[in-house]
């Protein structure tokens, strides 16, 4: 068992490498942790069971030093009230994390706002169907995101100015979920420069077809998801070009190793989380058949803890919620979970662009772009997306 393995799982959302500073930043990730937990549960349970099953209260989230509350048996009426209370407690806690001075959300109450946690907060509110909560200061959140865009189209994560293509995805996804990015928004022209954001992403593309965190940075599968996802939200996937799409899909397909798992960069070990980062990008590009899907599903299944539950980064490591979510999401994207529906199991599917259950995406009216592919039948589960027809030549 690798005790160090759990470090990766408990680290930041979209974290791409382990480092001293990120180790410390674990204290900031509870917002993302709640998002991973809720979305993971949402893929396994019917919506009305998610809140009741979560067992998270405001006290246990915001006061980590307090001993856990002992649960007691309840009758049906009390359980129903508890469901409402739990949902309310989570939403209340999300609003407790709002940074009034900045206009975004922090990882925990009292922490500075950051795009990573702002997206997680908005995703949680979307899951809880609470985007219309009067406490949500939409204009402030939109302004927080827009002010972080730089002159070259890139986005900083917060006021301290770190630039990363992760933040481009976070900003565009947040704005899109808030209906502040798209044709149905009267404020579209004032929010962010979508085309400049897309052009910056293209500048981060490397000769191998992959994308890095900034211009000239090494290609990484996690960044590929962010860049392709951002282009999908911006409806700018045509910028990849036919040749560029094939080159990128080839690079992603080469991430599959003998075990069936996927790694994030050449010569690295396979890791369950790349089941999501890579599969989602391939799904958006209509090229999921470019990898061996059964071998990947087998790898994810081998990473399960068959005694305590949860999924680890690789077989025989400690499970954690980060990899549990992305493992479940990977199996959902592969279609394996839905193959069980004829056995009486009901699973919600996940959207490859927004990383939310597809019914939530449909309810919000979100319509990201996906690429059509003449060699692969369109994924029927993505019928609500805007399909860009394939072209022969790169643009």
């Amino acid at each position: 068992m690798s005790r160090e393995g759990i470090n990766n799982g408990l680290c930041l959302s979209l974290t791409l490498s382990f480092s001293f500073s990120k180790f410390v930043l674990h204290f900031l990730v509870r917002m993302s942790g709640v998002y991973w937990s809720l979305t993971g549960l949402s893929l396994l349970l019917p919506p009305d069971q998610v809140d009741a099953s979560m067992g998270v209260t405001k006290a246990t989230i915001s006061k980590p030093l307090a001993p856990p509350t002992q649960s007691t048996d309840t009758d049906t009426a009390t359980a129903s009230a508890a469901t409402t209370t739990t949902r309310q407690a989570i939403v209340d806690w999300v609003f407790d994390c709002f940074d009034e001075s900045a206009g975004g959300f922090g990882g925990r109450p009292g922490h500075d706002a950051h795009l990573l946690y702002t997206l997680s907060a908005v995703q949680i509110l979307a899951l809880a169907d609470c985007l219309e909560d009067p406490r949500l200061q939409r204009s402030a959140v939109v302004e927080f995101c827009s002010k972080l865009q730089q002159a070259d189209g890139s986005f900083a994560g917060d006021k301290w100015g770190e630039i990363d293509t992760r933040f481009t995805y976070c900003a565009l996804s947040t704005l899109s979920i808030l209906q502040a990015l798209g044709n149905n928004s009267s404020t579209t022209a004032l929010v962010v420069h979508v085309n400049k954001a897309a052009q910056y992403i293209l500048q981060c593309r490397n000769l191998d077809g992959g994308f890095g965190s900034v211009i000239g940075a090494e290609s990484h599968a996690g960044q590929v998801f962010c860049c392709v996802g951002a282009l999908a939200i911006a409806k700018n996937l045509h910028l990849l070009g036919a040749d560029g799409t094939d080159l990128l899909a080839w690079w992603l397909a080469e991430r599959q190793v003998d075990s069936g798992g996927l790694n994030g960069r050449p010569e690295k070990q396979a890791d369950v989380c790349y089941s999501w980062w890579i599969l989602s990008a391939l799904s958006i590009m209509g090229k999921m058949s470019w990898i061996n899907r059964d071998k990947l599903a087998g790898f994810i299944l081998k990473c399960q803890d068959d005694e305590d539950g949860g999924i680890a980064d690789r077989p025989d490591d400690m499970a954690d919620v980060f990899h549990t979510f992305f493992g479940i999401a990977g199996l959902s994207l592969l279609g394996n979970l839905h193959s069980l529906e004829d056995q009486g199991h009901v699973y919600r599917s996940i959207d490859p662009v927004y990383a939310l259950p597809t019914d939530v995406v449909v309810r919000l009216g979100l319509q990201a772009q996906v690429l059509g592919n003449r060699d692969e039948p369109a994924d029927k589960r993505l019928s609500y997306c805007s399909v860009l027809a394939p072209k022969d030549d790169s643009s």
Partner: protein
Amino acid sequence: MASRTAAATNNETVSLLPSEPPFYSSLHVQYITSLAAKLDLSTSYEGALTEHRKLFRCILNH
């Protein structure tokens, strides 16, 4: 860490691929829903790791 031979007999398992371990759907629900308590429980691995990181931050702050 669980052994690969142990069967989760008390929980729902579903077979995705014939030659691979089953999918432990109910175990994963149980795992996620128990996390909030585990993080605050010093006797759990997750709680111990959280405490370790708190100490680490305290050292950095001083």
